[in-house]
C-alpha cells in the first residue's frame, strides 16, 4: 500500500483518539430549548423569515440565504419561536439567534418523514436538480470551514475540475466522528460521491484516509469494488498533522500544489469532507435538510463517543446527555468547540452546536497546560514544521512591530496551529499571525489610499 503525504513540514501530536474510537454513533435526546444562529457559514448571514411566537416544524426554513454565497438555515425541531435576539455563539461572536422552545413529541413525530428512502436514479436526475437539492438543504462544509456547498460545486466556468478528493483524513487529535461515519455508512457515502460526480463531472475520485484508520481503508476498498466504481480509489495517507488541510491533501494525493492565494479549483481539484458527502446523500435520498451532524464528544467526560446531534443543542445538554457529563466538574479547565488544534475555546456552556461543530473536547488541568509567552530562542522549529513553508517566527516578529509591508505571506497561513504547538517558549505564533493578517490588510488599505491621493 503506497502511503502518500504532503511535502512540507507537519507534526505528530499524540492522537488521543482511543477514547472515542470505535464507539457507535448514538443519538442525543432532544433538549427543551435550542438556539439557532443565522451565521453558521462563510458568506452573508441568513435572514430570519420567522417571527416570535411562530409555530414551526422540523425542516421549516428559519433563515433565507442572502445572495448566492450564503446558506439556508432550517429548523431541526418542531416547536415555538421564543425570541430572536443577539446572542453569543460557540464561535465567540454575537449573532442574531433564534431561541426555540422544543415540542419533543411533535419533533419526534415530524422527524419520521426523513426516515423513508426515496427512489432516486442519479444517472437520470439532472445536474441542476441535484445542485438545487443541495442548495435547498442548506448544506455547508462539515470539516470546520463551513463553506456553502452549492457554491463550491459551482466553480467559475473557466475552471475545469477533474478530480474529487474525499477528506477522510480527520487529522485533528481526539476527533473520531468522520472515522465512525465512514465505518457505519460506507455505501451511503459512495452514493453521495456518485451524486457529486454527476454534478461536477470529475474523471477520478480519491478517498483520502489516514493509515491510523486501517479498518476504514479496507472497508472502502471493498465497497468501492462492490459498487463497481472504476474511477474511484482509496488513497491511504501517512498519519501526520495537518493532513486534512485541503492544500496538503491535494498535494499528498495528486502531487499538485495550490498556488499562493488561489483555490483548489485552480488546480482542477474539488475537496469535500466525508460528513458533507453524507449530508448530500441524505438530502437527495431522504429529502432531509442539514439539521443534524455527527460530532465527537471526548476528553474529560465520562462516556466519550460519537453522537448525532441536532443543530442548536446546547453544549451542556449534549455533554450531559450524550457523554454522561464531565468526569470531575471542578477539574475542567477548557472546553473546545472543534478539535484542540484549531477549535475555539468557549466561555460558557450554554452555547449551541452549529454546522461547523466537528467536536466538543473537554480538557482538564492535566491536558490543558498554559504558559505565558517567553522570548523567541530562534530554534527554527516553527519553520521546520510549517506545512505552508512559511516562517512563523518572522511573521510574528513583524506583526509585533506592526510592519505591514513584510506581512503579505501571513495570508497564506492556514492557521493549523503546528507552529504554536512546537514552540519551546510557548509563543502564541498562530495568534500573532492572525493579528498579522489584519495588520497587513490595514497597511494595504493605507497604501491604496495614498496611491489614490496622489
Amino acid at each position, binding site marked *: 500500500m503506497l502511503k502518500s503525504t504532503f511535502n512540507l513540514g507537519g507534526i505528530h501530536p499524540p492522537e488521543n483518539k482511543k477514547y472515542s474510537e470505535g464507539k457507535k454513533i448514538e443519538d442525543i435526546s432532544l433538549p427543551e430549548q435550542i438556539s439557532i444562529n443565522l451565521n453558521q457559514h462563510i458568506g452573508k448571514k441568513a435572514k430570519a423569515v420567522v417571527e416570535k411566537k411562530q409555530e414551526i416544524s422540523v425542516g421549516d426554513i428559519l433563515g433565507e440565504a442572502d445572495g448566492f454565497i450564503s446558506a439556508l438555515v432550517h429548523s431541526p425541531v418542531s416547536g415555538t419561536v421564543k425570541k430572536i435576539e443577539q446572542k453569543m455563539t460557540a464561535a465567540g461572536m454575537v449573532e442574531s439567534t433564534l431561541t426555540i422552545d422544543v415540542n419533543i413529541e411533535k419533533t419526534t413525530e415530524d422527524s419520521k418523514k426523513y426516515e423513508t428512502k426515496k427512489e432516486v436514479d442519479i444517472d437520470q436526475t439532472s445536474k441542476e436538480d441535484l445542485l438545487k437539492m443541495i442548495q435547498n438543504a442548506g448544506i455547508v462544509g462539515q470539516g470546520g470551514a463551513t463553506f456553502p456547498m452549492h457554491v463550491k460545486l459551482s466553480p467559475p466556468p473557466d475552471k475545469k475540475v477533474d478530480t474529487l478528493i474525499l477528506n477522510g483524513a480527520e487529522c485533528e487529535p481526539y476527533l473520531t466522528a468522520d472515522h465512525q461515519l465512514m465505518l457505519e455508512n460506507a455505501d451511503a457515502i459512495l452514493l453521495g460521491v456518485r451524486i457529486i460526480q454527476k454534478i461536477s463531472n470529475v474523471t477520478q475520485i480519491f478517498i483520502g484516509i489516514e493509515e491510523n484508520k486501517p479498518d476504514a481503508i479496507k472497508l472502502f476498498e471493498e465497497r468501492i469494488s462492490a459498487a463497481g466504481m472504476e474511477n474511484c480509489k482509496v488513497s491511504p495517507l501517512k498519519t501526520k498533522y495537518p493532513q486534512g488541510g485541503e492544500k496538503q491533501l491535494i498535494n499528498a494525493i495528486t502531487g499538485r500544489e495550490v498556488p499562493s492565494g488561489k483555490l483548489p479549483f485552480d488546480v482542477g481539484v474539488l475537496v469535500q469532507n466525508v460528513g458533507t458527502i453524507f449530508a448530500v446523500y441524505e438530502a437527495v435520498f431522504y429529502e432531509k435538510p442539514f439539521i443534524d451532524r455527527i460530532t465527537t464528544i471526548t476528553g474529560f467526560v465520562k462516556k466519550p463517543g460519537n453522537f448525532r446531534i441536532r443543530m442548536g443543542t446546547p453544549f451542556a445538554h449534549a455533554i450531559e446527555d450524550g457523554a454522561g457529563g464531565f468526569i470531575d466538574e471542578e477539574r475542567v479547565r477548557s472546553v473546545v468547540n472543534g478539535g484542540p488544534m484549531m*477549535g475555539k*475555546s468557549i466561555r460558557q456552556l450554554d452555547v449551541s452546536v452549529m454546522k461547523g461543530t466537528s467536536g466538543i473536547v473537554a480538557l482538564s488541568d492535566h*491536558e490543558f497546560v498554559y504558559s505565558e509567552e517567553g522570548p523567541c530562542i*530562534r530554534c527554527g522549529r516553527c519553520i521546520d514544521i510549517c506545512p505552508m513553508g512559511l516562517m512563523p517566527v518572522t511573521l510574528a516578529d513583524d506583526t509585533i512591530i506592526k510592519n505591514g509591508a513584510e506581512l503579505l505571506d501571513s495570508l497564506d497561513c492556514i492557521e493549523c496551529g503546528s507552529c*504554536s504547538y512546537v514552540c*519551546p517558549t510557548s509563543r502564541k505564533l*498562530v495568534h500573532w499571525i492572525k493579528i498579522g493578517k489584519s495588520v497587513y490588510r490595514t497597511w494595504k488599505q493605507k497604501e491604496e489610499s495614498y496611491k489614490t491621493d496622489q
Partner: protein
Amino acid sequence: MRELILTSAPHVRSGSQLKNIMYDVALALLPATVWSVYKFGMPALNVTLIAIASGLAFEAIALYMQRKKDIVAITFDGSAIVTALLLALNLPSNSPAWLVITGSFVAIIITKHTFGGLGYNIFNPALVARVFLLISFPVQMTKWVAPNGFGADAQTAATPLDLIKTEGAAGIEKITSQYTNLDFFLGNTPGSMGEVSGALLLLGALYLMIRKVITWEIPITIMATLFAFTGIFYLVNDAEYASPVLHILSGGAILGAFFMATDMVTSPMTRKGMIIFGVSIGIITGLIRLFGGYPEGISFAIIIMNALVPIIDKYTKVKKFGT
C-alpha cells in the same frame, strides 16, 4: 464549576519546552565534564562548580535588575547552567577562581543580558567570555595542563595546536611522534577541559541529535569544511601542514562545532542558512589556524559568523508552498 479558560488555538502544546532542551544539552555535556575532572583532578571540578554557581548568581542578579517576574523559574530554566558548563570546558583546568568568575560575568551579564536576555543575544555568551579572557589574560589562558589524571601534579604543557603554530614543521613532527589520532580522540593531549574528550563530546552530541535538539547541518558542515580546507594544504605540503584528521580532532573543533556553533539563539534558523554558516566557520577556522596569529581559530570564526546570522536568515528564506 470554575470559570472556563479562553485561549487562542491550539489548546494543546508539545511536551518539549525550553527547560527540556536546556537540560538535555547540560546532560550531553556531563560525560565530557566528568571525564575532564577524572583527567585533570580537583582543579577541574572547582572550575566547573565555580562557573555554574557564578553563572546562576549573575543570571539572578541580571533578572532582578530588569525587574522580571518569576526570577527563580527563569534562572533555573537551564540556559545559564549550559553557558556556565560551556565556559568551564573552554578554560584551562587550573584557572583561578577570579578568572572563572570574570568569564561568567562577561558571558551572562555582558553578552547575554545587556543585549536583552535569552533569545536576544547576538553572540554566543560562552565564546565571547572565552575570547575576552584570552585577549585580556593571555598568560593564564594559555597555561594548559597535561591530563595526567586525578590527583597528579599539574604540569603545564603546550597543546598540539600551540606546537604547530610556534614550531611549524618541527612541531608537527613532535606531535605525530608523541600522539596518535586515537589519543586526540580519547583525550590524552594537553588542552582546555573540553578539548580533551572528543569521544565523549561526540557521544553527547549524538544524544542531542537523537533528541532533535541539534541537527546535523551545522556541526557536520563545519567538520567537513575544516577537514577539506586543511586537507588541501596537507596534500600540497604535509610537512608544513598538519593532517586534517588532527585538525578536526584537536583543539576546540569538536566542542565548537557540536555545542557552540549549534547554540540556537546565535545560529541561523533556516536549514540552508545553517549550511552556509557551517561552511563559513570551517573556512575561517582553517584560515586562522593555518595562517593567522592564533593557534586556535574556531572561537573567533563562530563569533564572526554570529554577527552575520540575521542577514543569512533574511536571504535564505524557505520556499513557500505553492510557489
